[in-house]
């Protein structure tokens, strides 16, 4: 291993600027004559807009313009799209209601943008936004997806009768029913996946600028995928053709999925900047973030597992209702379908699976991908079912899982996915050893002696990352290809810039991507810079989400490096009068094998650019690009075990031990991977124990601030014990699988399995708040007393 190459714990290059406060975020930027935008937002969850009166607002000091949806539509700005077409089981395309960046007819969730004010200062813009008078005719509301499907429920969109967006299925229904008809045991559960607010540290922001002489727009924004943003803004919202629109996503403080999507505010800022003739900036405040960032999860599921007499799984039947909120956000349709139901086989050999998913409109914020996106929901269903079924048939949870593990690869599941490599039992054993599973009984006895309840629970997760083979996702309805691109630009002095379409918003790409180059060429990471986040600099890219930047983004860099190396070798061979096949690259030098002849990488780079002595016919320069389209998803997997102690007096659950044993394939930087796992685990534990998005029946968001929305904090989580095994991913050149979401995917069921174990109950809903746990103990105690 090179000192800073693959596998080294290189400190993050980007941290210096973050830690010293020198990060450059969108809201840090100003431009001459810049105006500030403030949005007029719906205070009702469902209402017809009778009128929008802007007279007072227009007269207020510093106000440039008060713009609404009528003008937006008149200017030809297109409706917000959903980029993944899902067909219902009857073959009909999904029912999509019109979603405008500024709504002027019917608002459908609290916080929906109705008008935008641009003024000299932020205060003036906000004052004027408050002075806009919107006259509403209130309409009945529905916030829960099951209620939305009922007869007589308030109807949101004329395009979607019964609020049904699609009624989708996957797997073989008849064969699965057959398995149930012949089952020796059936486990059935109703499982809810609670709605979450993403809460990245940096709220969304947009700074738009229009240059009338060039008819050219620039948008600085908090995006995980600036090229996708440009594509969508150009092709669908008609803001400007791509060559007239530059999108820059500078430092971005976390996204967790919520910054994949193109939101009304960015569109409105771009549109407004031309109308008002000055740069326009908007930065979300925390309340706006709660109300309008795309939320995550929110599923109601009924699941049934069929076992034969030997406790082998023979069938799995799942019915899910997914709440997509009031409008379809960019990738919302794919989350409860192809990112969810395709993972319902878990780590297990299940011959028959059938899943039916209904996606539903409600008067709540749009729901889309959030760290894990569909896979946490699937894992929760699978791993709660596995735990419960094991207990019902009297098997130890680990043994029941072992009995049903997939052990041969490749493995084709009944729900599209073809698992390429893995060793699930290795992770299970590793996790059980690390947590001293055998010592649990004794630890439980100690807790009981102290008047506490103790429980242990596991979760053997699998997920699909590295999205995705373009042709495959295209056939499933995706509107884009999911390759990645890279360019490796060697400078004349041998330093390197890597231009990547991946975007780092916390992942540490500036370090890990440099490590890959360092590993290949033996150069210090200091001489390698990673350039990303600017459509003017980087050729093209699909961005960062779905743990794809390693497996897909770095594979593209690897392919570009192949080309750079090949050309460098040709030049070196020519200069040293050796055969190309004898040239090796090591420690920043190109050597002729078996001799002491060598040239430094700098000498070869310089030769490429002076072009004084290149092989016959060779172009000058040393710069190569590559596009990499994956051949398959990658399948990170692992085993998480959680051990909790419950205080029966208060219902407080404390996580005493937590082990995460992951198989991410090749690991570039273990320190960064550990950071990703820690963050994911905390988010997953947050979902299981603390976070819960609640609307009241009028569609007002009750948890719209940190006073009521419980974010996990350091004292809510233990010191994690992390382990890894490595089965290399055969699908990409680096053998990588991805680690960005695993923690959030695998942990919620482990936590709930542990708590239900401690309480001796079959089920409970997330989050396991102290009040809820205490109530369960009361109810249970009363039941026991009554028996």
């Amino acid at each position, binding site marked *: 291993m090179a000192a800073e190459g693959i596998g080294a714990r290189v400190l993050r290059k980007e941290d210096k600027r973050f830690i010293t406060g020198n990060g450059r975020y969108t809201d840090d930027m100003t431009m001459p004559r810049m105006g500030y935008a403030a949005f007029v937002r719906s205070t009702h969850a469902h209402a017809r807009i009778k009128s929008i009166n802007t007279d007072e607002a227009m007269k207020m000091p510093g106000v440039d313009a008060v713009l609404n949806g009528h003008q937006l539509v008149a200017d030809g700005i297109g409706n917000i799209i959903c980029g993944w077409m899902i067909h219902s089981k009857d073959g009909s395309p999904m029912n999509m209601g019109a979603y405008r960046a500024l709504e002027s007819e019917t608002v459908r969730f609290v916080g929906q943008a109705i008008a935008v004010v641009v003024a000299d200062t932020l*205060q003036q813009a*906000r*004052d004027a936004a*408050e002075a806009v008078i919107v006259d509403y005719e209130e309409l009945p509301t529905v916030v829960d997806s099951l209620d939305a499907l009922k007869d007589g429920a308030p109807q949101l969109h004329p395009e979607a009768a019964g609020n049904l967006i699609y009624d989708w299925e996957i797997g073989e229904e008849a064969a699965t029913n057959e398995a149930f008809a012949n089952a020796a045991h059936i486990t059935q559960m109703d499982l809810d996946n609670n709605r979450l607010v993403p809460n990245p540290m940096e709220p969304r922001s947009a700074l738009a600028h229009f240059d009338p002489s060039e008819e050219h727009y620039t948008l600085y924004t908090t995006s995980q995928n600036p090229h996708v943003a440009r594509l969508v803004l150009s092709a669908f919202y008609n803001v400007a053709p791509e060559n007239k629109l530059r999108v820059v996503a500078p430092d971005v403080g976390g996204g967790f999925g919520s910054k994949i999507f193109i939101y009304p505010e960015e569109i409105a800022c771009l549109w407004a900047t031309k109308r008002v003739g000055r740069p326009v900036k908007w930065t979300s405040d925390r*309340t706006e973030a709660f109300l309008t960032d795309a939320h995550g999860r929110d599923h109601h599921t009924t699941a049934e597992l069929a076992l034969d007499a030997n406790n082998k799984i023979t069938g799995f039947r799942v019915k899910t209702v997914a709440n997509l909120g009031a409008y379809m956000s960019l990738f919302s349709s794919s989350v409860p379908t192809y990112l969810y139901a395709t993972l319902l086989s878990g780590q297990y050999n299940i011959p028959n699976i059938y899943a039916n998913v209904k996606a539903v409109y409600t008067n709540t914020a749009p729901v889309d991908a959030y760290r894990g996106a569909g896979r946490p929901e699937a894992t929760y269903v699978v791993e709660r079912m596995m735990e419960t079924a094991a207990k019902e048939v009297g098997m130890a949870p680990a043994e029941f899982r072992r009995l049903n593990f997939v052990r041969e690869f490749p493995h084709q599941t009944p729900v599209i996915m073809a698992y390429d490599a893995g060793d699930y039992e290795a992770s299970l054993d590793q996790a059980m050893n690390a947590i001293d599973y055998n010592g649990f009984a004794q630890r439980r006895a100690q807790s009981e002696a102290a008047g506490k309840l103790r429980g242990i629970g596991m979760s053997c997760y699998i997920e699909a990352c590295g999205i995705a083979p373009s042709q495959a996702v295209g056939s499933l309805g995706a509107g884009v290809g999911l390759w990645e691109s890279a360019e490796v630009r060697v400078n004349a002095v041998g330093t390197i810039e890597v231009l990547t379409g991946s975007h780092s918003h916390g992942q540490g790409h500036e370090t890990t991507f440099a490590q890959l180059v360092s590993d290949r060429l033996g150069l210090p990471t200091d001489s390698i810079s990673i350039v990303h986040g600017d459509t003017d600099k980087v050729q093209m890219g699909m961005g960062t989400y779905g743990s794809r930047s390693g497996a897909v983004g770095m594979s593209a860099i690897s392919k570009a490096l192949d080309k750079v190396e090949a050309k460098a070798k040709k030049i070196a061979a020519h200069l040293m009068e050796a055969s190309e096949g004898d040239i090796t690259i090591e420690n920043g030098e190109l050597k002729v094998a078996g001799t002491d002849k060598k040239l430094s990488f700098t000498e070869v780079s310089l030769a490429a650019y002076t072009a004084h002595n290149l092989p016959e016919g060779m172009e000058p320069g040393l710069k190569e690009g590559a596009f990499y389209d994956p051949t398959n998803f990658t399948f990170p997997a692992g085993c998480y075990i959680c051990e909790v102690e419950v205080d029966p*007096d*208060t*219902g407080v659950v404390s996580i005493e031990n937590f082990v995460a044993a992951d198989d991410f394939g090749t690991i570039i930087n273990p320190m960064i991977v550990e950071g990703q796992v820690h963050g994911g685990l905390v988010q997953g534990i947050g979902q299981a124990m*603390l976070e819960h998005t*609640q609307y009241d029946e009028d569609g007002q968001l*009750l*948890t719209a601030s*940190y*006073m*009521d*929305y*419980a*974010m996990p904090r350091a004292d809510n989580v233990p010191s994690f014990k992390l382990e890894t095994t490595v089965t290399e991913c055969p699908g990409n050149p680096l053998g990588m699988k991805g680690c960005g979401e695993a923690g959030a995917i695998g942990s919620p069921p482990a936590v709930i399995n542990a708590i239900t174990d401690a309480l001796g109950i079959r089920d409970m809903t997330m989050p396991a*708040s*102290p*009040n809820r746990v*205490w*109530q369960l103990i009361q109810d249970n105690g009363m039941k026991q007393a009554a028996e």
Partner: protein
Amino acid sequence: MYETKYHRASTVSDAAAMLKNADDGKLLSGGQTLIPTMKQRLAAPSDLIDLRHIDEISGITKQADGSIRIGAATCHADVAGNADVRAALPGLADLAGHIGDPHVRHMGTLGGSIANNDPAADYPAALLALGATIETNKREFTAKDFFTGMFETALDEDEIVTAVVFPAASHTAYVKFPNPASRYAMAGVFVAKTGSGARVAVTGAGQNGVFRMPDMEKALDGNWSADAVASMAPAVDDMLSDMHGTAAYRANLVTVMAKRAVAAAA
């Protein structure tokens, strides 16, 4: 935030005059409640009169009778770290040391906290349990008369809290159950063994703000032990109920926190 004018007072009478002259002025102490409210545009005072630079209402003194006098503009961290408070009223020091986070404790003040009288604030429990006296620029109040309901006090619009005097007590302890989101008390119980007997005051749980538990006090007078209060709870109907905790849960928490406080003050 709406536009506002900032004034820095150097004496209490100076502050009173500034408040009087303002259109719709408001006293500003640590700003940990008022500023967030203004940022959310839920309050829009024309003028802010900053009390934190008034020497006469800041600082902590141990008085001859053993009582502790704390100026209204004293921040929570100073109370938590004060040697006299820690020795004489450890429960009070502990309470102040667990308000919010370090930032809040270095900005937020005793005067601001009790003038605001958030039903989940910690200090009111200590004042009521210890039988503290609240001094203002006009008069004095007993804690019982001062706290009149949720976010309600007996203060006049233009009245300034200047100090709080806490009588000595042989045993004190405060134990709170934090709201999982805000970390304010969902039930905070202050117990004290005072010259006039055992006192138990509860914050965070009641529908009308801070209240005492006479049954528990009587039981503790006879037997200062956690067991003595183990079977006592406030009436469920008087408890707050919200998405974080039902009334029944809060009533239970009062019992559990009281037990733990008594045990801590043993």
